[in-house]
Structures are given as structure tokens and as C-alpha cells.
């Protein structure tokens, strides 16, 4: 039985809302809370409110499969996610929180010559950017993952893999809690059960939010919403290159042998890791059709189970304990969208698809810098909403690990 380290949970200070703030952040998930935390710690801006429609981390922050990695395929993304991983590595020491950050290594299997080319290209690009990713032969894959069936059940033979050595997992709710605690301890207000139903406008400018409980004025409004971002952006007259698709995930009962690595397959679009409690945590591709339903489906469980048991046959004897779904905002080029929207006073961080958890520290830090200084940091400048108009998209579907 793993220690949950409940005694190490730090307090969150809950406050009554003011009428007006310098900064209002819509969405109390990882990105919203991290932005508030870095505004307070890096820039001394504490007249900030984070508005959450439900409870903090109730959306995708608490629903994802907690993988932290930087093995992307376009340089801008590798640099961004590598920086995020570095921030994660120092986050426990910085906040004093127990985050269960566990370096594991991410093994990305290839089942065809084309898949091998993809992984080889990824390795070279990662190494050029200073990220440790190495190619593995099938024999080396077996050394790292003794439970693997290299024939892939006869259907998906393992041709090789790329191994991203520094990849890790962490406990998602602890990350949200650490940022919320650090932010509220410095005077930031985190307001739960306060859905935003409109935006306050002064001419073209956004000057606050309308909540179910009344208006709140703000110097700057940041949408850090997951799931209903198209609806929130529409309140400001902003149209987004985003579709929202549900992604399902499940955990099994405890596996007592231990699976050290994060095992993934791009071609099968599935991934598995072991949680701190010993459960196997499994996710795969999102639903092909957009929807806002967070009901888990039998179709998804059947399809994921089929694929993952081809690679790890021991999973056939495990039972599914819990399943759930989250809403993934998939941008048209499979990369996030951060920064200005073209509407004064209204910023956005979205397009986090299935890859948002790993980006929480770097996304929050960069958005905080943008809000505090008025300048977009170089790290996120390529991820602006205007890239679609400038014809500088960052197409990187093969690094999402899903489709």
C-alpha cells in the first residue's frame, strides 16, 4: 500500500470574491492555476482571481494520463516541452509539495518501416535540441519492458522504438493543488463553482466577466478553459481553429510485478503506465466525432483493451476498475494556442488536446510573463493564434500519441 502523503498536503485559502481584479483567469485547471501562481511568485501580481465552474482540477487536469515528456517533432515544441519538464523537476522543491514526480522513460514502439522512420526522425530532432531520445532495437525494448510481446500478438510486430529517457509521470491533482496553494498563499483568489456565462465589454475591449453569481471586472481576462473554449472565445467574438473530442481512459487493479516504463505506440495510438498505487493506467485515441459528452463508452474500452493486450498480454488477466473521459480541444495543427487573440484585454491558452498536463508549468510561466510585461515570451511566440493566418502552422500530429 503506497503512502498517499496526505500529511504533506498544503492548505488552500478560500476567499470571498471582490468586485474587480487586475487579472481574471477563467478555468481552475492546471494552466489557470499555474498562471496565477507564476503571476504571484515571479511578478508580484496577486490581485488575481481564478474562476472555476466546478471544483479545481475537475476537468482535464484531473482526467489525463499524467505523462510528462518532451519528445516532440518540431523544434518549437521540443524547446517548450523540455522547458516545462525542467520546471516540473524543480516544482516539488519550489512549492514544498509532494507531487509523486517519477522519471520513468517513454518507450514509443514502431510496428512498420514507416513507424521506424517517424521514430528515427524524432530521435534526431530531439538530439539536435538537446533532449535525450535514443533508438532501441527489439531486444533492447525487451530488456526495458520484460512483459512485452515483441510479435504484438502476431499482428503488430515491434520493429524497434524510440526511448525518451527523461520522461516522467506525476500525480495530476497534486500539481493543481500545489499551484492553488502557492497562489492563494500569496493573496490570489481561487473561486470554485463560479461558471462564467458572459464577458463584459467596453467597446471592443474585454473588461471583465459575467458569472452566474454576478459581474467581476478585470484589467485582463485569460481563458484557460478546457472543453468549452470555443463557447468562451465566442463570447469575445473570437473564432478558433479547434474541435472538441472526448478521450477515454481507464485504470486496472494493481499489477504487482511493476512496469517501469511508459509504453506507447503511435501507430496503435495507445499508451500505458503504472500509477503510484500500482494500477495500470491506459489511454488511446480520442473519439473521431467531436462532442462534449464525458460519459465513458464500452466501445472505447473494448478498442483500447484489444490494442494494449496485443503488446502487453499480461493485461488480459487484469480487471478494469474505473473509466472516465475528458474533453480534448484539438487544434487544426495539433499544437497549443497561447497568447493574444486580437481582442484587447482577452488572452487565451487552449488547444491543449491530449497534451496539456505536461505543459502546465511552462504554459503558466509564459502566460504570466505575457500578462505581467505585455510582451509575448520567445518560448511561446510561435504558438500564437495568428500563426494560422501567417501560414506558420506547427503540424505535429505524430507527437500527440493519439489521433
Amino acid at each position, binding site marked *: 500500500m503506497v503512502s498517499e502523503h496526505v500529511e504533506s498536503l498544503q492548505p488552500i485559502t478560500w476567499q470571498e470574491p471582490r468586485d474587480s481584479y487586475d487579472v481574471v483567469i477563467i478555468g481552475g485547471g492546471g494552466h489557470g492555476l499555474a498562471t496565477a501562481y507564476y503571476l504571484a511568485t515571479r511578478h508580484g501580481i496577486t490581485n488575481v482571481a481564478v474562476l472555476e465552474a466546478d471544483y479545481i482540477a475537475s476537468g482535464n487536469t484531473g482526467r489525463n494520463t499524467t505523462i510528462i515528456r518532451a519528445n516532440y517533432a518540431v523544434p518549437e515544441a521540443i524547446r517548450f516541452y523540455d522547458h516545462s519538464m525542467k520546471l516540473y523537476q524543480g516544482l516539488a522543491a519550489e512549492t514544498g509539495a509532494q507531487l509523486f514526480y517519477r522519471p520513468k522513460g517513454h518507450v514509443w514502439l514502431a510496428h512498420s518501416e514507416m513507424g521506424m522512420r517517424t521514430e528515427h526522425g524524432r530521435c534526431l530532432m530531439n538530439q539536435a535540441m538537446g533532449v535525450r531520445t535514443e533508438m532501441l532495437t527489439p531486444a533492447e525494448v525487451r530488456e526495458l519492458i520484460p512483459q512485452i510481446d515483441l510479435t504484438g500478438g502476431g499482428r503488430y510486430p515491434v520493429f524497434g522504438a524510440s526511448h525518451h529517457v527523461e520522461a516522467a509521470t506525476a500525480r495530476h491533482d497534486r500539481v493543481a493543488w500545489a499551484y492553488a496553494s502557492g497562489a492563494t498563499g500569496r493573496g490570489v483568489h481561487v473561486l470554485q463553482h463560479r461558471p462564467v456565462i458572459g464577458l463584459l465589454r467596453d467597446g471592443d475591449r474585454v473588461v471583465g466577466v459575467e458569472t452566474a453569481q454576478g459581474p467581476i471586472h478585470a484589467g485582463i481576462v485569460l481563458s484557460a478553459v478546457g472543453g468549452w473554449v*470555443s463557447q468562451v472565445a465566442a463570447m469575445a467574438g473570437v473564432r478558433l*481553429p479547434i474541435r*472538441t473530442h*472526448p478521450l477515454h481512459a481507464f485504470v486496472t487493479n494493481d499489477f504487482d510485478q511493476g512496469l517501469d516504463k511508459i509504453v506507447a505506440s503511435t501507430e496503435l495510438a495507445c499508451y500505458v503506465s503504472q500509477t503510484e498505487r500500482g494500477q495500470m493506467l491506459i489511454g488511446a485515441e480520442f*473519439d473521431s466525432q467531436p462532442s462534449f*459528452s464525458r460519459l465513458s463508452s464500452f466501445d472505447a474500452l473494448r478498442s483500447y483493451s484489444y490494442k494494449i493486450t496485443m503488446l502487453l498480454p499480461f493485461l488480459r488477466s487484469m480487471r478494469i476498475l474505473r473509466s472516465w473521459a475528458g474533453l480534448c480541444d484539438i487544434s487544426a495543427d495539433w499544437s497549443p494556442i497561447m497568447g493574444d487573440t486580437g481582442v484587447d484585454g482577452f488572452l487565451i491558452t487552449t488547444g491543449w488536446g491530449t497534451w496539456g498536463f505536461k505543459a502546465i508549468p511552462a504554459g503558466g510561466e509564459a502566460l504570466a510573463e505575457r500578462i505581467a510585461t505585455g510582451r509575448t515570451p520567445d518560448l511561446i511566440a510561435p504558438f500564437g493564434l495568428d500563426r494560422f493566418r501567417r501560414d506558420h502552422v506547427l503540424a505535429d500530429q505524430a507527437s500527440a500519441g493519439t489521433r
Partner: protein
Amino acid sequence: MHMLDCPRCGRRPLDEFAFGGERRTTASPIDDSDARDFDEVWIFDNPDGLTTERWFHAAGCRRWLTVQRDTATDTVMA
């Protein structure tokens, strides 16, 4: 959602179909032609509610069909 009604093949599992995107039911309100082209290429309405879509019966008759679906609950209406 598990099944779709194909007008040619009947009620078939969703796995056989490929989502082909929403059908815009009203003319774009954007006047500027460049801006309208940009909107049609890159932007999605992404509605939370009733929507009209095109689906392709990839593993069946390989023809297109129009589906009405409620994206709030992911249920097919017609």
C-alpha cells in the same frame, strides 16, 4: 453512440464510418473574401448542441450521408 443509420446499408456500427466534419447550414456572415476563405479552411464552429454533419461510410457503401447529432450528449437525432 454506437450505431449509425446508413440510407443504403441500414443500421451499421460506428467503426465503419469516418467523421467528415460539420456542414455549415448558413452562409458565412463574413464579407471580406480573404477572411471568409481563411474562416472556411481553418475555423470550426465546434457547437455544443444540435449539429448537422457529413459522415463517410468508409467500410460500407463508400458514399456520404448527412447526420444530425447532439454533441452535448453525443446522440444521433436523424
